[in-house]
């Protein structure tokens, strides 16, 4: 659905997006993560045929960027960084205006369908300016969907919303998953990316890492087992002599053991620890939060070290 090769955008001397290679499949929810100024919005603007790349190429929804921009705009929907609604117009008039700019068969019916789906129907005649932030965001998402785009670009859909409104919007995005709709989600919210995305790309001007959230973490950190001990058992980490153990660290009364395949190796690990005289309280897997991964990558630290 989205394919870019060396996609680059400069603003004068500043490079906002540098040589982006990306492949996003139909029906996939792709999370595009990066700090402020990373170039996320610039990337969306290029992919939605709003601004031209200064280098590289891209195919979006089957059309070459720069050759069939209008066709691309017909097939993609964009939730921009700010909702961008006409404050004086009613919710319904806002949507009708946009529906009529696309080749939508029955604009009135389509608008009604989305207003009902997003629970805004009761307030359809009120001016958008009187809506809460969360409602505005829902209205803006509805607007991006009216023409049933093949690709939906969401630029930080939950930024600036209170936790409850953010949850509503997140749940809504969850319901938009469909095998025919590709979703490209920009966010700094790591839990959001973890929950919603099939794959994520960590990005800062260039792509730093791409993969599904679980695999990315494993690739970066390996898998780790935490053994909680009832008594400190000093020195036990030095005496642990199993060939498959890659690394042992101690944190108070916990041992953090790096393993290649914990499912197969944990039983032998526990057996050996007991033999060495450890009182094992319980064993669990260490989950690296996406946040740690993100921060490590952004700070350029080598997470594996």
């Amino acid at each position, binding site marked *: 659905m989205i394919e870019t090769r060396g996609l680059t955008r400069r*603003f004068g001397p500043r490079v906002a997006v540098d040589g982006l290679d990306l492949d996003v499949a139909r029906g996939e929810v792709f999370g595009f993560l990066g700090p402020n100024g990373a170039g996320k919005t610039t990337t969306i*603007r290029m992919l*939605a045929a*709003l*601004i*031209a790349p200064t280098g590289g190429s891209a195919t979006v929804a089957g059309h070459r960027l720069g050759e069939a921009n*209008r066709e691309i*705009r*017909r097939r*993609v*929907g*964009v939730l*921009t*960084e*700010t*909702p*961008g*609604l*006409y*404050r*004086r*117009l009613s919710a319904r*008039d806002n949507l009708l*205006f*946009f529906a*009529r*700019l*696309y*080749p939508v068969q029955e604009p009135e019916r389509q608008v009604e369908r989305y207003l009902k789906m997003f629970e805004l129907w009761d307030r359809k005649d009120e*001016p958008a300016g009187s809506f809460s932030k969360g409602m505005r965001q829902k209205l*803006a998402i509805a*607007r*991006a969907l009216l023409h049933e785009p093949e690709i939906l670009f969401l630029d930080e859909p939950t930024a600036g919303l209170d936790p409850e409104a953010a949850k509503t919007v997140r749940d809504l995005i969850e319901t938009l998953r469909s095998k025919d709709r590709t979703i490209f989600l920009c966010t700094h919210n790591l839990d959001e990316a973890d929950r919603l995305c099939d794959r994520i790309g960590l990005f800062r001007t260039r792509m730093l890492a791409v993969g599904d959230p679980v695999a990315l973490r494993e690739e970066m950190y390996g898998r780790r087992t935490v053994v909680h001990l009832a008594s400190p058992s000093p020195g036990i980490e030095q005496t642990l002599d199993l060939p498959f153990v890659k690394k042992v660290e101690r944190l108070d009364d916990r041992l953090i053991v790096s393993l290649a395949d914990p499912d197969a190796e944990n039983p032998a690990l526990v057996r050996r620890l007991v033999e060495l005289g450890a009182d094992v309280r319980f064993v669990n897997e260490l989950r690296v939060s996406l946040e740690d991964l993100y921060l490590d990558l952004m700070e350029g630290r080598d997470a594996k070290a």
Partner: protein
Amino acid sequence: MRRLRVLLLKEWRESLRNKMVVFGVVLLPLFLVGISVYMIALGEGIGDPTASIVMFNTSLMYFLLLPTIIPLAIAVYSIVGEKDQTTLEPLLATPISDLELFLGKALASVIPAVVVNWLSFGLFLAATRVVVGAVPLQALTAPWLASIFGLSPLLALFSVGVTMLVSSRASDARAAYQFSSFAILPGLVPLIIYSSQQTLVDLRLVVAEGAVLIVLCVVILYLAIRVFRREQILTRWK
């Protein structure tokens, strides 16, 4: 062209809900018509038959001023409003073309300006008839009619072009308003010459003024179309 119509209707729907715009488009013309009719009535009171004719003649000037002033409010808000509601980006993400967007924005101001101007003129004639008993036809000469009907669309177009250019650079409506009013003045110079010789108004002057305006409009529209490009709007407009 379907999209152009959709955009025009949206612009007008929005304008009708904006007090500043409604004031500029409805109250201002009514106010000027009211003043003119009042002056003519005063002239009538003096008892000298030429007095009310002079007043009538002066009043005709308003219908060359109105088409430049009326579109200001609509054009400023249709650009600055779009900017401060941050609606330009979602709008540009639709299949609307740059030209459709430009034409929609321009016509949204030019059409009401011309229509309101002509309506005000009609109202003015009707009110004069009621107050003075008859429209002084000897003052309502062919050159005047040619100016009011022929020049007002050009005056409106010029005014809108200038306002759109200025508004694309301004982030606040009041500043855009003031700058635009200022920038329109040079376009009114021929008009001022014209009015200072109102007794000598003849068709050649009207044609000359028309020619000057056409040149000005072409220049302004050329510049404005260059500013109305997606890329430019998203990356350069403030």
